[in-house]
């Protein structure tokens, strides 16, 4: 990691967008602080809202009581504490992790493909994961291993198979991003077809399970899903964070990047692998949550900065806050029934995105 980031440290001095980056840095520091504040605010709001009308004071009491040194007598009953700590909080944290992962992965894909339409599902991750999940849910494919349950394991494997196949088609992805992109399109089409065929063979209960998985949902089994996703989020997130400046360099073109001492094929490969792994892990626990990975990076780009130095970390914060916020709606709008979170992400996100677009003139990545 250290050696990979070395050339960039030297090259940021020469970078054409140097001043812009510099200017953005001050703004991004402010934006980061603001992002963290918003994230915490959303977290508290989410923790105190839900179908089970837990008293807000009780929730805050229990939350403070959770902090080791503080000793506050919680006013919640045993059932209410169960609801808060085993159902609501895991779901809230999972929403943040998934949102942040999709945001970062989306930003990375957009940078690496130099394509504003790129999203984390570009290389067939979604179709591959969906196919895997259908096989696990409907046909008893059991790849469970260690902490991985059957569905996450199968979805994860499906996603990886699709991405690896896309990259194999494009001969490692090093040659040209466009080839890789087309390989992804081919794989996505292939796996979607397989998935549709498989769903059609299912009976009603199974098909409904598969569909609610495909819509994207943040149902948790305690903290299990959080622990599954966390290592991937941490490792891949760190890799992408370190390589975020490579994305700025890749923007100016392969030849320029090479002249600046960067191996474009290698950087691309690292970023794509890390982002795909991250997406696959997120998808395996939450299903296909649309829109976050595509739009969150654009919102950051339009509102804060065009430099990936800023876009990558802020996409994590904004993605986390956005999905956690939207999930409040999924849990409460139709309470006590549930609304698929994947539906609301687009419903809330699209108008907001349109507003940002309308305010700011479009500029290519």
């Amino acid at each position, binding site marked *: 990691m250290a050696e990979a980031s070395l050339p960039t440290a030297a090259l940021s001095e020469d970078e054409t967008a140097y001043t812009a980056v510099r200017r953005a840095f001050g703004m991004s520091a402010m934006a980061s602080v603001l992002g963290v504040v918003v994230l915490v605010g959303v977290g508290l709001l989410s923790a105190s809202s*839900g*179908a*089970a*009308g837990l008293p807000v004071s009780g929730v805050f009491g229990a939350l403070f009581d959770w902090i080791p040194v503080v000793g506050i007598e919680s006013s919640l009953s*045993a*059932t*209410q504490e*169960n*609801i808060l*700590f*085993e*159902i*609501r909080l*895991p*779901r809230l944290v999972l929403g943040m992790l998934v949102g942040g992962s999709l945001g970062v992965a989306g930003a990375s894909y957009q940078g690496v493909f130099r394509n504003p339409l790129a999203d984390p599902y570009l290389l067939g991750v979604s179709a591959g994961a969906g196919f895997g999940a259908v096989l696990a*849910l409907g046909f*008893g494919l059991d790849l469970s291993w260690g902490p991985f349950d*059957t569905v996450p394991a199968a979805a994860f494997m499906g996603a990886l198979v699709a991405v690896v196949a896309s990259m194999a088609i494009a001969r490692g992805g090093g040659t040209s991003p466009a080839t890789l992109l087309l390989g992804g399109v081919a794989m996505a089409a292939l796996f979607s077809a397989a998935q549709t065929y498989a769903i*059609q063979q299912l*009976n*009603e*209960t*199974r*098909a*409904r*399970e598969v569909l*609610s*998985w495909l819509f994207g*949902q943040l*149902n948790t*089994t*305690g*903290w*299990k899903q959080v622990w599954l996703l966390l290592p991937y989020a941490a490792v891949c997130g760190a890799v992408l964070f370190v390589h975020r400046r490579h994305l700025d360099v890749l923007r100016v073109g392969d030849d320029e990047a090479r002249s600046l001492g960067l191996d474009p094929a290698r950087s691309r490969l690292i970023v794509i692998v890390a982002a795909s792994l991250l997406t696959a892990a997120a998808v395996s626990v939450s299903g296909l949550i649309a829109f976050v990975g595509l739009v969150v990076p654009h919102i950051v780009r339009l509102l804060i900065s065009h430099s990936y130095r800023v876009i990558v970390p802020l996409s994590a914060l904004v993605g986390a806050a956005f999905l956690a916020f939207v999930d409040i709606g999924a*849990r409460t709008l*139709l*309470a*006590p*029934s*549930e609304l698929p979170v994947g539906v609301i992400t687009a419903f809330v996100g699209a108008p907001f995105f349109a507003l940002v677009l309308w305010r700011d003139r479009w500029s290519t990545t």
Partner: protein
Amino acid sequence: MPRRLFRLFFALLLALALGATACGNDDDGPAAQVIEESAPKATSTQAAQSPTQEAAPEPTPTEAPSAPAPTEVPPPTEEAAPEPDPTEAPPERPQRIVSLSPTATEILFAIGAGDQVAAVDQFSYFPPEAPVTDLSGWDPNVEAVLSYEPDLVVIANDANDLVAGMDAVGVKVLVSGAPADFEGGYDSIAELGIAVGRVDEAAALVADLRVEIEDALAAAPDVPIRVYHELDNTFFSVSSNSFIGAVYTAMGAINIADEADADGYGYPQLTEEYIVEADPELIVITDLVGYTAEDVAARPGWGEVAAVRNGNIVVVNSDIASRWGPRLPQFIAAVAEALQTVAVSAP
């Protein structure tokens, strides 16, 4: 030319059928007759079964009982009379029925029309003698269905414009959807009986079912027990607007999904924290899901739920618990037994 001829023939058939129905309505026809014969016994059963009451004021026991028909049949008169559609009263029995609805298949075999069934869809595996094929009821293909040369197609819902496709070639289609309550279920049995020319048998089945279901319902304790019926681990459930969910309320239990079903669709998806807060005393899951009662009990945060604390999680056969059919009393009996257990174990 043959096509025009065929149309002519079909029109003639239609006219004949219409005529037959009209006549049937005049003198209350054989269908109505059989069902109404049983009117005298009605009052005893209706007290326990409020849904039937709207049918009560209509019995016209003018016909003399001609056949040794079941005597305990209460009079669901509405199911026989107001169906003057020609497709439902064919002059003869269809001999090559294709059923794309597992529920309809079970009913067809229960009313003795099994011999008339040429093919059934891939999930119609009960009763075992049903001629299962790879036909799909979800995504039916007109040509595939036609390859069995059906003279009647029974479907649960009109997917892929199957009705229009069958209309085009002059094959009759009966759409027999999922009923919303018991009466709707009896109606659809009667409707099937009429369509396949097994009116007596259908009436007998309805009569038996009424008795069995009533007995099963009566076996339930009259205690408002909170019940959660789980369809899958994304917390889809059944409210009282579906006939399965209605079973619970018919037994005096409280179906916790009702509160979540504002639009009356019948199959709401619940939020997990609501389920835990609602504190169901009985949890019912089906054997189709990929997890067990122990898995449900072990869910994080569910430890304080009454059903989990007292071990009242029951597994029911998913086919019986999702089809309106001859086996429904088994489901009701199982639920009644479970409710009885809860009532006894409750403090």
